[in-house]
């Protein structure tokens, strides 16, 4: 007889000897949790049950156990944690809008820094992220052995963080003895700065060395922070030599991160690099359906299709559009139909309403190439200035639909043919030069970021 059967037998006999009320109160959620050499430990849900069984039913239980020819030397009762159901709350839950923000940090696991809401179960896979997903699932089976480091890149709001965290969560769950740690690069940098200030850089490194899986998000922020890069480089080598898994994300591939040291770049490129692109229509629909399901509401399929068709670039915007509709639905207690959805989302979807203007393009291009805004208008043929100027002209043509003479005029009275040449050159360049293509993508995203 195993311990479960044994306890079943005991219960069925006790049932006959005490009142139903007593039985259901005191023997509910009890079980034998260990039986070794006549030493039996019975798990009980709370201290009330323990006192009662110990003081009132101990004799009875012992007798029955003996009848079942079980040799008992010692019988002990122990409280085991069983989730308690609190009486249904009489307080009304406060009504709140679907857009109410939460204190996200409360969802973080204390030891790993991971947010448990990110899992593979709610990660939608499509052609746009197949490779990254496949690499991620390979890693969780055998962390540190294949694809090390694993470098994921892609634009904002496409699910990099989700994938990274899901990998971390899964490893944490499957390999109990592996230490997983997730950091945003910002936190990592703050850590280094503090360590330098407190002269505890050695301890800092020691601490990081213990991790079996280190996940660093948004590594592009390392750009230009040389000391952090150096420390990270050493740490990287240490972990890598010990076959510890390193997972990194960025908004662009390693070679497109300006001001990243060559040795770090080559390290990043040494493992598996996977990109996450923009989701296709089917994936967008699937994502929307998943979100609707998560939020436990209902929306018309036609409406979802409309959103999927019109919000194309990024998953976060998809969610934003969806939230808007759900909030409206909750507020007005009325279902959103297609016409209404079009109306409500007009502002979000119609890109013309986005404030993209000449000033903004100039600012973003100048910022990107670390120039002053004035520099773009200089009548200079220096290489560092010519290219940014051409890029700015290209954006004015492509994104603002400005005329060539207007563009030429804006840049210090240049001829319209200069503008045409610039635009052609960049357009051609994008096709041949991948780095330039990446740069253009990143700037474009920034232009439309707000």
């Amino acid at each position, binding site marked *: 007889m195993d311990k479960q059967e044994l306890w079943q037998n005991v219960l069925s006999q006790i049932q006959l000897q005490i009142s139903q009320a007593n039985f259901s*109160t005191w023997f509910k959620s009890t079980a034998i949790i260990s039986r070794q050499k006549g030493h039996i430990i019975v798990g009980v849900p*709370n201290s*009330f049950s*323990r*006192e009662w069984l110990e003081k009132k039913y101990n004799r009875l239980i012992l007798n029955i156990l003996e009848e079942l020819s079980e040799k008992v030397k010692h019988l002990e009762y122990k409280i085991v944690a069983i989730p308690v159901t609190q009486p249904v709350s009489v307080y009304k839950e406060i009504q709140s809008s679907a857009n109410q*923000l939460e*204190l996200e940090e409360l969802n*973080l696991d204390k030891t790993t820094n991971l947010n448990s809401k990110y899992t593979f179960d709610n990660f939608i896979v499509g052609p746009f992220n197949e490779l990254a997903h496949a690499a991620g699932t390979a890693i969780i089976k055998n962390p540190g052995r294949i694809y090390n480091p694993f470098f994921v890149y892609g634009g904002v709001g496409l699910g990099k963080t989700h994938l990274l965290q899901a990998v971390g969560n899964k490893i944490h769950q499957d390999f109990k003895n592996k230490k997983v740690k997730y950091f945003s690069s910002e936190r990592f940098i703050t850590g280094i700065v503090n360590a330098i200030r407190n002269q505890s850089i050695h301890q800092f490194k020691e601490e990081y060395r213990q991790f079996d899986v280190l996940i660093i998000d948004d590594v592009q922020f390392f750009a230009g922070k040389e000391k952090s890069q150096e420390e990270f480089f050493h740490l990287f080598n240490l972990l890598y030599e010990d076959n510890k898994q390193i997972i990194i994300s960025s908004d662009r591939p390693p070679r497109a991160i300006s001001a990243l040291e060559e040795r770090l770049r080559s390290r990043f490129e040494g493992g598996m690099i996977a990109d996450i692109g923009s989701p296709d229509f089917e994936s967008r629909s699937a994502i929307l359906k998943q979100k609707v399901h998560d939020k436990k509401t209902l929306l018309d399929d036609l409406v979802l299709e409309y959103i999927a068709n019109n919000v194309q670039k990024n998953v976060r915007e998809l969610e934003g559009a969806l939230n808007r509709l759900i909030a409206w639905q909750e507020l007005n207690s009325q279902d959103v139909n297609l016409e209404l959805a079009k109306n409500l989302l007009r502002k979000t979807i119609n890109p013309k309403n986005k404030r993209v203007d000449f000033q903004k393009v100039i600012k973003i291009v100048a910022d990107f190439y670390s120039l002053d805004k004035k520099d773009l208008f200089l009548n200079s043929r220096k290489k560092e200035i010519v290219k940014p100027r051409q890029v700015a002209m290209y954006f004015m043509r492509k994104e603002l639909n400005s005329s060539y003479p207007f563009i030429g005029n804006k840049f210090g009275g240049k001829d319209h043919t200069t503008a045409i040449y610039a635009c052609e050159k960049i357009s051609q360049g994008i096709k041949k030069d991948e780095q330039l293509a990446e740069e253009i993508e990143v700037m474009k995203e920034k232009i439309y970021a707000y």
Partner: protein
Amino acid sequence: MKITILKNKFSKGLSIVEKITGRNFTLPILENVSISSEESTLRLSTTDLEIGISYWIMAKIEEKGKITIPVKPLSNFVSLINEEQINMETKENTLFLKGEFYKTQIKGLSADDFPIIPEVSEDIWVEIDSKQFSQAILQVIDFCALTQTRLELSGIYLSFEKDQVKIVTTDSFRLAEKTIPVSAVSNDFNIQTLILPRNAARELVNIFSQEDGAMKLYLSPNQIMAEKRFPDSDKPCVRLVTRLIEGEYPNYKEVIPTGTKSKVLIKKEELSNQIKKASLFSGKSNEVAMDIESKKGEITFFSQNVDLGETKSKLKADIKGEEVEIRFNYKFLSEGINQINSKDVSIELNGSDGPGLIKPVGDSSFLYVIMPIKPS
């Protein structure tokens, strides 16, 4: 059992222990109060199997004994007696109450079937002012999560250190933390943390907010006991034993913002009035927008409702830092501000989608973190 007891004391005792009893179909004895006589005291106990309360009253004991009696009818009856003393006697399972002008009998159940209220080891304890402790719990108790999904957030987190205790609640939209001093601790006391169920906290406040002086909390892994002793005696006068919530409380300190982008100093009274005014128009979403204009030193409150209309009003304030337009659920905002006891309130904001920190001015023992509504 044969005893004589003062009516007022008996009545008070019953009113304290009766709160946690209620209809119970599986175990009707839980509707009863257990009455048992000790050397010179009478002990009243009730339990709902999560919380147990015991209360001791001085009495003249002629003959020892014990019994359990349905607490509601007994308590109601005793409160209506207008004589100073009560003579009580038990025969079998019936309680006889006798005075100069009345004679009453109430049927009860045998005390042997009454649950045993667990004892808590007295090794680890803290001593704390009972009124101050009750006040502090009241200040944060409304911000517990009411969901079943995250049980650890449904209780009150207590973190005891040698000289202070931090009392924390959060429902993931806002968080409150109150710090009060601890007057004494047991030997070799290390930091002790626990999660107190909300119901138990309410009972604790009900009982101990009326008591002057210090109370003791005995801590153990699954349960705690709150105790108050008779003055000049080491005999307990009232005890509450409760189960604790298992689980790990999140690392709540991560939530409290360390930096600030905009800082507002404002009169509490004026602020709550403005919020009240705006809330009338906020509709179902409870949404109130605040436009913090540091240059003008003004806050504009705005709310609108498709059916009713809209309102906009301004308030002068001392503002430093960035301008920001931020939207809050007015209930979250006013509930937090209501718990602030100073004349002026300090509000520190971190952009339109970052956490806000609300504190009393000149009192660092309380803080309230609130998340805004996402800007659209």
